[in-house]
């Protein structure tokens, strides 16, 4: 009987230990928020959060920390990346889910997985070696020549380092995220609905357009939001090609200074200027909260979509 008691005791002890770990994991996000807020506190005591978010004055030496420039910069790069990535990703996901023969799918999936596994600095290196020169030598002169009248496309940045380069690199980085989630939700559409459309004489694309996509729409939106939140926090690759000039951009060719780049670039001097470390931790907190909002929104949409489908 004692052996049995021992086994039961071990079992419940292990249960408690693992349960404690699970509680820790469940609370980890909260820990991170509290820890960052704690470090940002000294700054928040003198400057209100609203002021931090809406001021574009960035003069650490004079104790002026406004995040607006950086937040706006992050949105520019991320939105451009999403706009560039979305059409090819959706088409690719549709092809893989609805058209591709099994063997081709088996060949393409590992490629996409590999793309997801490439380290961020390697993307950045590729950006510096290929994307930046291409934009500097080909796109910028072209745009300056033909599109100079459109304010959003005014090309007077001769370096090539800017939002456009950042957007292109970031777009390639979010390919795998959007494609894999979108493909999964498209696949989840019940076959009966497809067959009904085909039986009515629809072509494959008509079926995709009228039935599959309509049905999978919430899931696709979730995939996009997920890709957005992934791209929003991406640091190294963007930082290496985006120029990092703390000025609110006016054109796609201008340099920008995204929030993650701000944090990563200044860790060296953050202990030597008063309040600088607080400001950078506050920046990390702002970044985290924005990303959290998007991630949770995406999860809720997905959950809703699953519930509707079943």
């Amino acid at each position, binding site marked *: 009987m004692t052996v049995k008691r021992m*086994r*039961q005791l071990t*079992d419940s002890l*292990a*249960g408690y230990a*693992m349960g404690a*770990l*699970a509680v820790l*994991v*469940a609370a*980890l*996000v909260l820990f991170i928020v509290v*820890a*960052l807020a704690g*470090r940002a506190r000294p700054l928040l005591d003198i400057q209100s959060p609203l002021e931090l978010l809406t001021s574009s004055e960035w003069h650490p030496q004079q104790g002026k920390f406004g995040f607006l420039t950086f937040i706006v910069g992050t949105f520019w790069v991320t939105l451009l990346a999403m706009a560039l990535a979305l*059409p*090819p*990703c959706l*088409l*690719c996901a*549709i*092809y*893989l889910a609805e*058209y591709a023969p099994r063997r081709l799918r088996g060949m393409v999936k*590992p*490629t*996409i997985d*590999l*793309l997801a*596994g*490439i*380290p*961020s*600095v*390697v993307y*950045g*290196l*590729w950006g510096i*070696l*290929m994307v930046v020169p291409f934009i500097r030598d080909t796109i910028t002169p072209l745009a300056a020549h033909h599109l100079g009248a459109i304010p959003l496309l005014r090309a007077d940045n001769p370096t090539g380092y800017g939002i456009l380069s950042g957007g292109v690199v970031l777009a*390639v980085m979010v390919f795998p995220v959007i494609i894999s989630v979108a493909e999964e939700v498209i696949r989840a559409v019940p076959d009966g609905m497809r067959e009904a459309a085909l039986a009515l004489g629809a*072509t494959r*694309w*008509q079926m995709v357009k009228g039935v599959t996509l309509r049905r999978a729409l919430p899931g696709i939106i979730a995939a996009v939001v*997920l890709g957005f939140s992934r791209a*929003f*926090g991406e*640091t*190294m690759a963007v930082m*290496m090609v985006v120029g990092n000039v703390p000025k609110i951009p006016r054109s796609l060719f201008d340099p920008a200074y995204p929030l*993650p780049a701000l944090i*990563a670039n200044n*860790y060296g001097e953050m202990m030597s200027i008063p309040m600088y470390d607080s400001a950078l931790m506050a920046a*990390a907190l702002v*970044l985290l909260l924005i*990303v*959290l909002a*998007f*991630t949770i929104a995406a*999860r809720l949409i997905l959950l809703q979509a699953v519930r509707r489908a079943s």
Partner: protein
Amino acid sequence: MGKHLEERLMLGLMLASLALVTGSLFLILGTVIAKGLPALNLAMLTQVPKGGYYLGKEGGILNAIAGSLAMATGATALSFVLSLGVALYLQLFVRQSSRFAHLVRLSLDVLWGVPSIVYGAFGFTLLLLLKMRASLLGGVIALALLELPIMVRGMEEVMGMVPFGLKEASYALGATRLETSLHVLLRQAAPGVVTVILLAFGRAIGDAASVLFTAGYTDHMPSSPLRPVASLPLAVFFQLGTPLPEVQQRAYAAALVLVVIIMIISLLTRLLARRLSKHVVR
């Protein structure tokens, strides 16, 4: 015949997108290989930076290779122990539909989306709290946190595929939940778990933003958990930032080494998954 024209057009666009996506992978790999291979030599792989290395004098990136391997290994081991507990708990110790299980899973999804620079900043505040400096241990902690959601969700997925009957059989023989976890669930899911571990390792070894604050950088080999360590991604980043072309060349070589390590991991994943699954009951 408008609808058939549309069909053809869309199919063409889809194939073009597919070519764009897969092509970009080969473009990136091609660039890194073309630039990195000429810069790579034996000294790069077997020496640490010597005096004047950053001015183009001799030396190599062995410090970064060793540092990256040490950090990623430590982080993967730490994360594995934590993740295994959580994954087994979610699988066998709570009801699948319980509110707590949902909460933990939502939290893991959210953690999966947390940017690595935020893990770095959080690791930094932890180090300050513990009165430590940037070190191997700091890097291990930050990377372990980064790996945690990948590992737990991955393990849960592969453990979920173990047939229910096997668990029932184990319970029917009088095994406790823990015994069922370790002898049935973990053993059956082993090939998948190995895949998940390698995936997380690959993610950790390539990450730069989270080790920037927490591990620092040094020209020496890793010696103590409390000293700073070098890492390959930061070796790429820092050497690229110098103005000398000779030193930038070495950044290309370091990037190639990093990519080769990632490719080896990816290949290993495929091979192991196939080999290990021989003994699994289906």
